[in-house]
């Protein structure tokens, strides 16, 4: 039943004829990279400041990026703050991951027409080649964090690896270009180190990138160490003049990663966590969480690995044309587990238990890895300040400090 995702099926190094050593780019070079991607037809999506948060949006110049912005994240708390330097990527996880780029909130699956009793179905086809319909791509993502890279790989496994691949998702992923960045300033809710997903993008099957940047702001030139992760990445890089990175820069990049790894806001002990969750079905802790959880579904919306969807069938006024849309759904929704006769998971308690047990436990049986990448978004964006790492610790019997509310 459980297919082991061995993660060694494709080795990135084999896709590059010879390994290309890291290079250095300055800020002009960063703009040149954006230009090169745009010139090749990519819509470049990167972090921007909007509505008091870092959100992903199409970008074209360096001015579109959150230069000099940082963030402060805690449970139920998110604020932007002005940095005292010019860092472009000096913040932790943005409000949303790369998930909505490849996995839209609303996707048209097919359109059906009924004429004289016959009904025909037209798939919302991407011609099998590209998903470049209605301005949908191809996308180049700039600034993807290591946690989110792992989340993308997890989504690849979930959405292409079981019975049937999701064709639209597959097409968008195939043609996407990914530029990741190493975290310099992890947040108060980050725990990628506990989950083995960061803070530095490692490449390989579980954290694929085309190019990865480490921002260096050490008093010298504002620059980026660029690592190449694929042939496609090497190809784009060859359009830009970038000198080989000096040894000192490589050491500095290592230092950035080490420093970030030591400043995680949270930890999660994953040892035996699945078994703990499986055997904690009757734990009183679930009643405790249920007294706080609003079932608002924020956590599932910001989580980069959540994948549940539902379908909406809509028809026009004549009843002759119908469309089937696939939209995001959440296991916290009261109707989620509804079957004729009643709802299986009626109480908030059972729904929270389902979400956490799935994310940290049964996901492993289903897909071979944990479903959590330690990005901390569910903690930051929960209006009730529920902390998945604290809940896991509480289930283990670790006493929890008094909550502020």
């Amino acid at each position, binding site marked *: 039943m459980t297919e082991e995702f061995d993660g060694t*099926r494709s080795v990135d190094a084999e*896709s590059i004829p010879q390994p290309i050593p890291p290079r250095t780019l300055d800020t002009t070079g960063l703009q040149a990279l954006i230009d090169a991607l745009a010139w090749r037809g990519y819509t470049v999506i990167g972090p921007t400041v909007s509505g008091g948060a870092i959100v992903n949006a199409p970008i074209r110049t360096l001015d579109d990026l959150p230069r000099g912005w940082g963030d402060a994240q805690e449970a139920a708390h998110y604020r932007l703050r002005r940095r005292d330097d010019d860092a472009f990527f000096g913040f932790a996880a943005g409000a949303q991951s790369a998930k909505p780029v490849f996995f839209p909130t609303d996707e048209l699956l097919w359109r059906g027409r009924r004429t004289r009793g016959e009904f025909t179905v037209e798939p919302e086809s991407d011609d099998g080649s590209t998903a470049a319909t209605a301005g949908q791509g191809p996308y180049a993502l700039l600034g993807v964090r290591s946690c989110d890279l792992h989340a993308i790989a997890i989504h690849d496994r979930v959405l292409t690896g079981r019975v049937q*691949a999701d064709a639209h998702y*597959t097409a968008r992923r195939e043609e996407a270009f990914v530029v990741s960045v190493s975290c310099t300033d992890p947040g108060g809710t980050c725990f990628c180190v506990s989950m083995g997903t960061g803070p530095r993008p490692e490449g390989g099957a579980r954290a694929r990138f085309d190019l990865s940047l480490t921002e260096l702001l050490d008093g010298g030139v504002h620059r980026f160490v660029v690592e190449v992760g694929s042939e496609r990445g090497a190809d784009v890089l060859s359009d830009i003049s970038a000198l080989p990175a000096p040894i000192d820069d490589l050491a500095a990049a290592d230092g950035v990663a080490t420093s970030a790894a030591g400043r995680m806001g949270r930890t999660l002990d994953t040892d035996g966590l699945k078994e703990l969750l499986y055997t904690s079905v009757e734990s009183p802790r679930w009643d405790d969480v249920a007294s706080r959880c609003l079932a608002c579904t924020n956590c599932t919306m910001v989580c980069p690995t959540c*994948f*549940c969807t539902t379908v909406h069938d809509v028809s026009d006024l004549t009843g002759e044309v119908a469309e089937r849309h696939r939209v995001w*759904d959440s296991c916290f929704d009261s109707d989620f587990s509804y079957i004729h006769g009643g709802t299986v998971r009626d109480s908030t308690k059972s729904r929270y238990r389902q979400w956490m047990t799935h994310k940290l436990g049964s996901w492993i049986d289903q897909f071979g890895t944990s479903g959590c990448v330690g990005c901390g978004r569910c903690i930051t964006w929960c209006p009730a300040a529920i902390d998945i790492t604290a809940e896991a610790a509480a289930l283990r019997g670790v006493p929890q400090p008094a909550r502020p509310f």
Partner: protein
Amino acid sequence: MGSIADFQPGGAATLTRPDPMLPRPFRVHRVHQDTRDTYTLELEPTDGAPLAWLPGQFTMLHAFGVGEAPISISGDPSRPDRIEHTIRNVGSVTAALVTAGPGTVLGVRGPFGTGWDVGTGRGGDVVVVAGGIGLAPLRPAILELIAHRADYDRVVLLYGARTPEDILFTDDLRAWAERDGIIVEVTVDNGQHAWRGRVGFVTQLVTRAGFDAVRALGLICGPEVMMRYAAQALSDRGVRPERLRLSMERNMKCGVGLCGHCQLRELFLCVDGPVLGYDQLAPLMSRAEL
């Protein structure tokens, strides 16, 4: 980056299989009313290409402009030219399906899920316990057994219905008992004076039924409460849990393990089930709201 298609067991080939998210048009050939709220639809593919399916599998039946519902296939597996679905009218989608007259085109996605795998019962007894509409997903398995009757020893069908008027497939039940060597015991939850048969809960039939539990294969289908008690009763009789199969039901939407709705802990019931062994299910059925 490597190709996403490389992740799949079948590689790029799975991308070229017919899209399970697209309904195939099937025309209603015949509608038979079984009971006051249950109807059997006989469908044939408009393009003539038969649907390959196994007893125990279900399809997502789509009523144009209304929606779709997961319905088990209830017909004869040896006759692939037409597929039968027995549907109980319980809501807007099923109402649209059961009122679709001959000639109406419905959409079919699937088949989905795991089957009863009756063949593994060869050389021993087979005990089938059905409750209510649960007899419908079991009917293909029973027909498969009958088609290879000599391969099995005793075959016992224990069937519980709500009232005598709710008994399904009465002609089949008679034929199976009189002609096909199946021991058929029927009970109802309550009956009128004119009913000459048994009244009582279906699990009561388990203690009385004659079969060799140790070598038996058990197939159970019906409301979850009934399946839980029936599985316990068969297990108490000595049927080994791994030889007891139940058809579980959860909210099905996509049918291919992508939408997440049908999960029962680590199991996706549309892919890992709906037919599952009691050895796997027992701990998952014993807790509320799992």
